[in-house]
C-alpha cells in the first residue's frame, strides 16, 4: 500500500481543528500556533503532491479506494489528475494565507479556526473525490461551517441575512444535485456511486437531457452562474476576511469544478445539447457582473462582482467543450482563486484600519501600506488579463477555445475584460492613491509581517504563473485532454 498522502491532506485540517477545540480558549497564542502548524503541513503536503504528479503518465494518481458502505456501492475513493490537482494546491495556499491574515481575530479565536479548518477538510475532500456520494459528503461539510463563520464573525450589519441567504441558496443547489446523483445511481444499474464507473454507464439520451439541467444548475449555484449568483456578493460582503478568501477563492471553484466533473462528464451527450445555453449565461456573468462592479461603492462588493464575472469565464471555458477552453478554465480557476484571495486579504486589511469599506471615504493607503497597494495592484492587473500575470495565461487559451465554437461570444467576453480594467484601475486609484481623509490619517498604520508574508506569497504565484506557465499548463492540459476523451468530442 502506498503512502495515503491525499487522505492525510484531507484530514490534516480536521484533526488540527479538533486539537484546537481541545485547547483552552484563553490560550490564543497556542491556538494560533497550532492552526499555523496544521495549515503549513497541509500546504507542504499539497505542494509535494503537486510536484510529484507525473504529467507524462497522466490519469488519476495517488488513488486510494476503500469500501465505505459496500451495500450501497459507496466507497472512499480519492485521486488527482490535471484538473483537480491545481485546486488542491490552491486550497492549501488559501488555507495557509487565510490563517496568517486571521491572526488578529480576538473574538472566540478557538472556534473560528476550528470551523475554518472543518471547511478546509470539506473542500479538500470534495476536490479529490472520485465517488459521487463522498463528493456530496464533503461538499456539505464545506458549506455548513461557512454559515457559522459568517453569522458569528461576519459584518454585524448584515451577517444574519447574508449567512442565511448564502446557505439556503447553496443547500437548495446541492439538494437538487443530490437528487440527480440518486437518479444516476438507480438508472445506471451498476449499484455504485463511483464516478469512474458511472462515466461508462452510457445513460440514455432522454435520461441525460432530463437530469443534466438539474445536476448542472445545482452545482452551478455555488459557481455563481447567472442568474444564481445572487448570494455571492452579499455573502462575501458579510463574511470575515479569511472566509471571504476561502469562499470566493476556493468554494466557487468547487461549484464550477463539480458542475463540470459530475454533470458534464457524466452526461456528455446532454452537455453538448445544453452547453450553448450555458455559454450564453456565462457571457451574461462576464459582462453584467463587471458592469455592476463598476458602479459599486463598497469595496467588497466590487471584488465580489468581479469574482462573479471571472467565474463566468471559467464556466464559459468548460462549456466551450474544447481542449484549449478547458485548459483555460482549469488555469483560470487557480488564477482566480489566488487573485481573489489576495483581493479579499488586502480589502480586509484596509477595512480593519479604516472601519469602512465605502470607496469615497478611503484614499491614500499606498503611503501607509505600500506592499498591500503593490500586491493589490498586481491582483488587479491579473484580473484584467494583463500579460505577464496569471490572468492572461488563463484567459488566452480560454477565449481561444470559445473562439472555435462561438466567435461572437469570444468577442463580447473580451469587451468585459476592458470594463474590468476600468473599474479595477479606478478602484486602485481611489483607495490607494490620492489623499487620505484626515480622520484616518492618524490611526492607520502599516500591516503586520504575517500579513506581508501572506500577500507576498499570493502575489508571487500570480507573477510566477504569468511569466512561466510551464509549471502548471502542461498538467492542466493533460487533465483537459483526458476530459475531452471522456466527452468524446
Amino acid at each position, binding site marked *: 500500500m502506498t503512502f495515503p498522502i491525499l487522505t492525510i491532506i484531507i484530514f490534516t485540517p480536521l484533526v488540527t481543528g479538533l486539537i484546537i477545540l481541545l485547547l483552552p480558549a484563553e490560550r490564543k497564542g497556542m491556538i494560533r500556533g497550532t492552526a499555523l502548524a496544521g495549515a503549513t503541513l497541509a500546504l507542504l503536503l499539497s505542494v509535494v503532491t503537486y510536484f510529484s504528479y507525473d504529467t507524462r503518465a497522466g490519469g488519476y494518481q495517488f488513488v486510494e479506494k476503500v469500501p465505505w458502505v459496500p451495500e450501497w456501492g459507496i466507497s472512499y475513493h480519492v485521486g488527482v489528475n490535471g484538473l483537480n490537482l491545481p485546486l488542491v494546491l490552491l486550497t492549501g495556499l488559501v488555507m495557509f494565507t487565510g490563517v496568517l491574515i486571521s491572526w488578529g481575530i480576538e473574538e472566540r479565536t478557538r472556534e473560528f479556526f476550528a470551523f475554518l479548518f472543518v471547511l478546509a477538510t470539506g473542500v479538500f475532500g470534495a476536490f479529490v473525490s472520485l465517488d459521487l456520494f463522498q463528493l456530496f459528503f464533503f461538499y456539505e461539510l464545506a458549506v455548513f461551517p461557512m454559515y457559522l463563520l459568517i453569522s458569528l464573525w461576519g459584518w454585524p450589519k448584515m451577517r444574519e441575512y447574508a449567512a442565511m441567504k448564502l446557505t439556503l441558496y447553496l443547500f437548495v443547489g446541492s439538494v437538487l444535485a443530490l437528487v440527480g446523483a440518486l437518479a444516476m445511481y438507480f438508472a445506471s444499474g451498476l449499484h455504485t456511486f463511483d464516478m469512474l464507473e458511472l462515466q461508462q454507464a452510457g445513460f440514455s439520451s432522454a435520461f441525460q437531457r432530463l437530469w443534466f439541467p438539474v445536476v448542472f444548475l445545482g452545482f452551478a449555484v455555488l459557481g455563481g452562474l447567472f442568474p444564481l449568483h445572487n448570494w455571492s456578493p452579499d455573502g462575501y460582503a458579510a463574511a470575515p476576511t479569511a472566509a471571504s478568501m476561502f469562499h470566493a477563492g476556493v468554494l466557487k471553484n468547487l461549484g464550477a469544478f463539480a458542475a463540470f466533473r459530475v454533470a458534464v462528464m457524466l452526461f456528455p451527450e446532454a452537455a453538448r445539447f445544453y452547453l450553448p445555453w450555458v455559454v450564453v449565461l456565462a457571457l451574461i456573468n462576464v459582462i453584467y457582473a463587471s458592469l455592476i462592479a463598476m458602479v459599486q461603492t463598497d469595496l467588497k462588493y466590487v471584488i465580489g462582482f468581479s469574482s462573479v464575472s471571472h467565474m463566468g469565464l471559467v464556466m464559459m471555458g468548460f462549456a466551450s467543450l474544447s481542449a484549449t477552453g478547458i485548459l483555460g478554465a482549469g488555469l483560470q480557476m487557480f488564477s482566480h482563486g489566488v487573485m481573489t484571495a489576495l483581493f479579499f486579504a488586502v480589502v480586509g486589511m484596509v477595512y480593519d484600519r479604516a472601519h469602512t469599506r465605502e470607496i469615497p471615504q478611503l484614499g491614500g493607503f499606498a503611503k501607509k501600506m505600500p506592499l498591500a497597494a503593490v500586491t493589490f495592484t498586481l491582483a488587479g492587473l491579473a484580473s484584467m488579463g494583463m*500579460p505577464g500575470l496569471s490572468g492572461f495565461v488563463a484567459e488566452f487559451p480560454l477565449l481561444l477555445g470559445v473562439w472555435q465554437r462561438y466567435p461572437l461570444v469570444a468577442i463580447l467576453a473580451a469587451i468585459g475584460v476592458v470594463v474590468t480594467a476600468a473599474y479595477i484601475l479606478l478602484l486602485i*486609484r481611489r483607495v490607494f492613491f490620492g489623499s487620505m481623509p484626515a480622520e484616518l490619517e492618524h490611526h492607520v498604520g502599516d500591516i503586520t509581517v504575517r500579513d506581508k508574508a501572506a500577500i507576498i506569497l499570493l502575489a508571487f504565484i500570480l507573477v510566477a504563473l504569468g511569466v512561466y506557465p510551464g509549471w502548471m499548463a502542461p498538467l492542466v492540459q493533460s487533465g483537459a485532454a483526458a476530459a475531452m476523451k471522456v466527452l468524446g468530442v
Partner: protein
Amino acid sequence: MDFLNAHLLTLILFAPTAVALLVLLLPARQVGVIRWVAFIGSLAPLGLSVFLWFGYRPAEPGFQFQEFVPWYQAIGANYHLGVDGISVPMVLLTTLLTSLAILISFSIRERVRAYMVLFLLLETGLLGVFLSLDLLLFFVFWEAGLVPMYFLINQWGSENRNYASLKFLIYTMGGSLGLLLAIQMIRLVVGSFDLPVLYSQWNLLKGTLFGVPVGTVKILAFWAFVIAFAIKVPIWPFHTWLPDAHAEAPTGGSIILAGVMLKLGAYGFLRLLLPLYPAEAHDFAGVLGGLAVAGIVLGAFASWGQKDFKRLVAYSSVNHMGFVVLGIAAAAWARGSASSGDAVLALNGAVLQMFNHGLSAAGMFLLVGVLYERTHTRQLDDYGGLFALAPLYGGILIFTSMGSLGLPGLGGFISEFLVVRGSWPIFTLYTAIAMVGLLITGAYILKAVQKVLHGPVNPQWQGHSLEIGVREALAISPLMILMLAIGVWPAWILNMINAAVMHLFG
C-alpha cells in the same frame, strides 16, 4: 563571447529588469544612490545595443541573433527573439532614450525608487515588442508596457493626470482587443504564433473559415490589427488620447511616449501588417494614406492653435508620425508594381522618420520639461524673450526645433524627403497636400520658438536663472549629435534600414 552572441537579445531585453530589481533592493531614502544606480544600470542595455548594432550584418537576409526557447507550450507560444535592420535602430533608440530620460528624471523628488523601477520595467516592455518574433510574445510585451506608463502618468503627472492616464490605458487596451482576438483567430487557423511560419503560411489560405470566405475574415482581422496600431501611432482620428497623455506625463514619460511608444504602432505596421496582409494593405492603402495626410495637416493646424507649449509639441507628433504612415501606405499600394522602387524609398523614409522623430520629439519634450521646471508654467504667453536670459537653452531649442521642422542638414529633412520622394509618384495628390502640411509645420515651430525666445523679455522672469543645467545639456547632446550625423551623412543608418526593407518588401 559566444555566450554574449548567443544570448545578446535576451541580455538586452532583461538587463533593465535586472537593474530594476537591484534598485528595488536599495533603501528608499538613498535617493542619490538610486538615481545613479538606475542611470548607470541603464547604460548596460545601451552598451549592449551598440554592440548589437556593430555585430549585425546588414547584407545577410533574414533575422539575426535569433533565440528560441519553448515558453507556453500548451498553446504553442515560444520565446522567439530576433532582429533585422528595422528593429535594430528601434532597439538602439529605445535604450538611448531610456538612459537619457532617466538622466533627465533626476529632478523627480517624490518616490524616486518606485519611479525608476517603473521606468526600467517600461524599457523591458518596449524592447520586447521590437525583439519578438512570436505573435503572442509580441502581444505580451505590447500590453505589458502599458502598465508602467499608466502609473508613471498617474503618479508623477501634472494636474489632469487621472483623466489622462485612464484615457491612455483604456484607449490602448480597447484598441488591443481586436488585435488579441485576431491573434487568436490566426492561431486557430494556422496553428502557430511563430512569425516566420505565419509569413509563409497565412497568405496561402483559401476557401472558407467559420463559414465565411477567407477574404472577408482577413479583411476583418486586417482592420483589427490596423485599429490597434493606429491608436498607438496615432493615426488621425484615433489620436485623441495623445495630447492628454503627453501633456500630463512627467518629462521622462513624455520622452518615452513620444520617442518610443508611438513607434510601436508604426513598427506593428511594418513587422505584422504589411507582411501578413499584403493584399488587404494594398486594397486599403488609399484609406490609410488619406488618414495619414489628414494627420499631417490637421496635426499641424492643431499644433499651431495650442497655447500650451507641451500640448503644441504633443500635437506635432501627430503631424510627424503622419509621414511615417504615408510612407507605409504608399509602399503598401505600390508593392510589387512598376513603381516598387519608389515604394522602397518611401519605406526607407518611414523607418528613418521613426528614428528621427524619436530623436526630435524626445529632445523637444526634454526642453519643454527644462523650462517648466524653472517657470512652473507651460503657457506660451507667459514666456517671451527668454533668449536673453538663457542663451545656451535658446540655442539648443532652436537647433532641436529645426530638427523637428525638417531643416536640411538635420535628420528630419532626410527622412521626410525620402517619404515625399517615394510617395510622390504613387500618391501624388496626397503628397502634395502633405507638403502643404509641411508649411504649417514650419509655422507652428517658428511660432513656438518666437513666443518662447524672442520678443520683449517678460519682466516676470527678470532675475530668474532659467539657463539649462549641465546634466540636462548632457542629456540632450546625444540627440543633437545624432540629428546632425543623420542629416549630414545618412548612409550609416540607411544602409541598415534599406537592406532590411529590400529583403522584406523589395
